[in-house]
């Protein structure tokens, strides 16, 4: 049954009050802005506690089935809850790979047994999930994955390596793409999909130290690791199809996510606000004509993205190069974000050279760290250069 406007409005008031009441105090250390930035146990435990609290209050997984820990109500309620989380600036719900990708997948195509085993732990944050798709030799080319899974009685034996495993060192489960048949005529047909445990002998993770000096990703090594055969999702050879479905959730093209804030949104308002008290030539930096021009351009860039999302829904205004707005969105947003954060540091004057850890760093070095982290979006999920090729070939029809 769908929710009425009145119900939603009442719910909004309720959830807004709860968020205000329960928004945790500054813990005294920098919190991750995205789920790709959970670098240490302290951050993990903080976020785990927060997500659990949001779930226990009934504001996470609201549209997931009740028997698996969800709320069993209309998804519109979760939409309202997410908006209020964003509006009230609360921390992220960090278990994104479970909440947003693996969870909806299991909900949609999983067996009863899989649903019962996995879904609730995703919501409560008890079970952290990670993803094993990318490999060192095959960054964006998933179809060529080489990690092997060989059936041996009631088990599969895993050998190979994955990279850029977000929270690999904290995860209890992994959605894993591995090759069960190296001789398949089409490389895609040799792939299978597993809901694999991480804490088994033969699976080791090595944290990758990021450009920020922090952690958040791991390399994951499989050395004769044995996992139960019933970890296979679907059947052997269906891995590619299930991986593609997973990416649909990841890109937000398919509904079903449990909700929660996946990343803190940093806006051009935040960028301008941080300049309070910064001087240039003896007066506010906001009076400098060159800076003002740069800021207006930054505002326009952000506004153009928002307007573009609106226009994408108007058929008559998208006939020129259909699909250009959604397909270029990742390229544009990630590049805009990177540029804006770079500008934010640039405008801080001599303080711009301070980094996280310095007591005088503006906002604790937030912008310096955020700038470095912004490259995770211009590189991850296909670099901006690859994205530009995709747009050129698929939208403009230019040759490969």
């Amino acid at each position: 049954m769908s929710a009425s406007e009145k119900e939603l409005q009442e719910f909004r008031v309720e959830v807004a009050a709860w968020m205000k009441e329960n928004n945790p105090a500054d813990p005294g250390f920098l919190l991750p802005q995205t789920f790709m930035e959970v670098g240490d146990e302290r951050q993990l435990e903080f976020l785990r506690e927060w997500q659990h609290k949001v779930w226990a209050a009934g504001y996470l997984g609201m549209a997931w089935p009740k028997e698996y820990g969800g709320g069993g109500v209309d998804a519109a309620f979760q939409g309202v809850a997410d908006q209020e989380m964003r509006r009230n600036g609360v921390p992220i719900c960090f278990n994104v790979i479970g909440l947003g990708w693996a969870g909806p997948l299991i909900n949609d195509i999983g067996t009863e047994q899989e649903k019962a085993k996995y879904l609730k732990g995703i919501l409560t944050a008890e079970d952290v999930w990670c993803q094993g798709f990318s490999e060192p030799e095959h960054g964006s080319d998933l179809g060529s994955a080489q990690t092997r899974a060989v059936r041996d009685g009631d088990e599969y034996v895993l050998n190979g390596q994955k990279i850029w495993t977000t929270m690999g060192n904290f995860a209890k489960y992994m959605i894993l793409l591995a090759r069960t048949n190296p001789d398949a005529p089409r490389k895609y047909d040799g792939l299978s999909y597993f809901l694999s445990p991480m804490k088994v002998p033969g699976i080791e993770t090595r944290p990758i130290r990021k450009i920020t000096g922090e952690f958040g990703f791991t390399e994951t090594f499989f050395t004769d690791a044995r996992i139960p055969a019933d970890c296979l999702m679907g059947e052997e050879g269906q891995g590619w199809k299930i991986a593609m479905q997973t990416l649909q959730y990841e890109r937000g093209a398919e509904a079903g996510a449990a909700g929660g804030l996946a990343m803190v949104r940093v806006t051009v308002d935040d960028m301008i606000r941080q300049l309070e008290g910064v001087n240039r030539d003896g007066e506010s930096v906001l009076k400098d004509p060159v800076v003002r021009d740069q800021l207006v351009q930054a505002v326009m860039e952000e506004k153009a993205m928002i307007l573009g999302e609106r226009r994408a829904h108007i058929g008559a205004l998208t006939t020129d190069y259909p699909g250009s707005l959604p397909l270029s969105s990742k390229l544009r947003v990630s590049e805009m974000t990177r540029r804006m954060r770079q500008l934010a540091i640039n405008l801080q004057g001599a303080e711009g050279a301070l980094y996280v850890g310095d007591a005088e760093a503006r906002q604790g070095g937030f912008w310096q760290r955020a700038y470095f982290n912004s490259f995770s979006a211009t590189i991850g999920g296909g670099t901006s250069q690859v994205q530009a090729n995709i747009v050129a070939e698929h939208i403009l029809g230019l040759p490969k």
Partner: protein
Amino acid sequence: MSVVGNTALKFSEEQAMLLDVARQFCRDKSPIASVRAQLETETGFDAGLWAEMVSLGWAGIALPESVGGSGMGIATLVPVVEAMGRAMLGTPLISSALAAQLLLRAGSSEQAERLLPALAEGAPATIALLEDADWGSDSVALVLDEKGVLQGAKKYVPDAAVASLFVVSVLHRGELALAVVRADQLGEGALRSNTLIDQTKRSANVDFSGIAVAENNIITGPGAAAALRDVRLLGALLVAAEATGSAGACLDTIVEYLKTRKQFGKLIGSYQALKHPTVDILTETDSARSFLYHAATLVGDSALDTDAEIACRMAKAQACQTLLYAGDRAVQFHGGMGFTYDCDAQLYIRRAQWSQQQFGDAQHHRKRLAALLLD
């Protein structure tokens, strides 16, 4: 409140239909060969084609039904002008629409009823504002004296040679006012045509000295200044619409060449050095269209509010920068061909430079946006 502010974007079925009709019309009636045929003519447009546009109702589309228009508002003109820009179709439509808006917004109902029906029926008209190169100056030196006689000149008056009517900003009793001048009042040699960088456009310097303006053709009071301000913003919007259309056509031209031209045994579109800037042109053009129809959503017959002002300025700043970039790269990517007059890239790079200088360039608008957004 976010500095990003209003993000409304609506497009009515009427607008969608007009966009469709206008694009079809301009594609059929204004192929590039026809555009080129007009480059060196005196008026710069085909009178027969203009008559067809008038018969489609475009001259009166934004005017109220009471004066013979279709009462659809200025926003409906945006898709039409965008379509014309796409086809590089030069006509006095923008000038005439702005003159009509100025009369509509500043004039009395008597003036509207007397002057506007002819415009709705397709008599070209124009506005005469500039006295020097500075779009940022509000000062007016052209005087309308106590006897109602004009003394002074205007520069860069668009479509002056074909206009039947000029709406002129003047200084009257120390205040800004508007004077309506008929073409037949102009003296011998009053017009000196400008040689423009964009050969699809026409303008002239016009000397109004000695012309006597009848009492009922003078518009005074604070309404005149307010209407003038709004019409300058609407001018920026319509030029943005045209430039956005031209940028789209320029992109098509680039893409077509990149898909057919071979060098070193490969289609040049396969080289990333050309591919990636072309994607930039696509995304910038996308932004221009988004700003354009956002602004069209916010403008109406009443005085423009701050959100509408911001939107018009952003639309202009974005569209003209986009077309400058697209036109510039179009020449470069065509290689030796691009350096020739025969290559269509020249049409776009010339249009880009012209558009940038109408109703204030990108820096002009961003400077004003800074005050609106940051102070």
